């Protein structure tokens, strides 16, 4: 139980993939204009991250390591990610056409979200069991969701706020992201 908590805290807060490791910044800036779509994107990314962490762990442990093909990690993980994202896309298109429309191009772009590949690759260099690997994936997704939802809530307020002209739009968003990142750096050494 304690181990679960440690993994979650370390992947959500301490090694947050967006604000501490700077992975997956494209959807972080791109889908954070509206809270609703940010929530949808978080859910989809968390789903993909957890599934990819599981699938890439299985591929790594059952296929690549026994055959001595560790050097094929990147390409096979990309294949895993592409398949999982495509699967998620079909699933969302069927279950929630509205979310599908709102997410638009960002849904297939989860494929190129480097946080997803980052989690798979980092998991394969640590020696983890299946449970731990999927927890790391879920933790990364939860961390991404937390940060994305917080950021989009702030950006919704910023859209209505009285911002000096040179800072309007992307500039103030970048500054906000930087300040959030500073805040998250403060979690280091928590565990």
């Amino acid at each position: 139980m304690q181990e679960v908590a440690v993994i979650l805290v370390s992947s959500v807060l301490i090694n947050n993939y967006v604000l501490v490791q700077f992975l997956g910044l494209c959807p972080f800036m791109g889908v954070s204009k509206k809270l609703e779509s940010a929530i949808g994107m978080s859910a989809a990314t968390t789903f993909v991250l957890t599934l990819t962490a599981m699938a890439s762990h299985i591929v790594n442990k059952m296929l690549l390591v026994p055959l001595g093909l560790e050097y094929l990690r990147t390409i096979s993980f990309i294949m895993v990610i592409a398949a999982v994202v495509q699967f998620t896309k079909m699933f969302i298109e069927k279950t929630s056409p509205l979310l599908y429309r709102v997410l638009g191009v960002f849904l297939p772009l989860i494929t190129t979200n480097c946080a997803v590949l980052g989690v798979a690759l980092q998991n394969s260099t640590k020696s983890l069991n299946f449970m731990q690997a999927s927890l790391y994936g879920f933790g990364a997704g939860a961390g991404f969701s937390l940060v994305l939802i917080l950021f989009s809530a702030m950006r919704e307020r910023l859209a209505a706020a009285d911002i000096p002209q040179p800072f309007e739009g992307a500039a103030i968003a970048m500054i906000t992201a930087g300040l959030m990142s500073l805040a998250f750096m403060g979690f280091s050494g928590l565990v």
Partner: protein
Amino acid sequence: MLEIITQQPILAALVALVGLGLAFGALLGFAAEKFKIEGDPVIDQIDELLPQTQCGQCGFPGCRPYAESIADGDAINKCPPGGQATINAIASLLDVPAPALDEEHGQEAEVKTVAYIREDECIGCTKCIQACPVDAILGAAKLMHTVIVDECTGCDLCVEPCPVDCIDMLPVEENINQWQWPAPQIPSGLIATDRMNGPNLVRPEDSVSNREDVA
């Protein structure tokens, strides 16, 4: 067989990647069958928001074709009977900004109206019957026509074709059977900082200076 594969690194790599590709291909093929969608459900949702007057003022033969066209990216502000309320609803559905009503397609009626045929002037030409998109006009050739009030959507498409101009659009009077609570106003200014530019805001220093003026 397995020995040959493990001894030849290239062969192993080939088999592994091809195998992975085949496995994922099979999974996706299965998913494509399983999660097949028929039609576009967004069209249905847009169609439900449109007022179903079938008036054709948007330039399409009815509400459904207009809904299909919106789903394909047409402008959402071509529906005068629905007015700004419909535009806002579709805008929030599709997550796009809500434009004002396009005047080219007509103006939003302020009160709901229904067609009324002055029956003693009607010559029974059936032209209005053919024009009515919702079959709300009753009558036959050379016999007097009349309007079923409950069915009439007030689209005024029957006014134009009438050769003797005996159709009037009358406002619907509210009675106890169709009265509804007014739609709730979306509250604004719940958050104090959002009201900063509002006209009612009196900053502390303002009130102080006002008092000094009075004194």
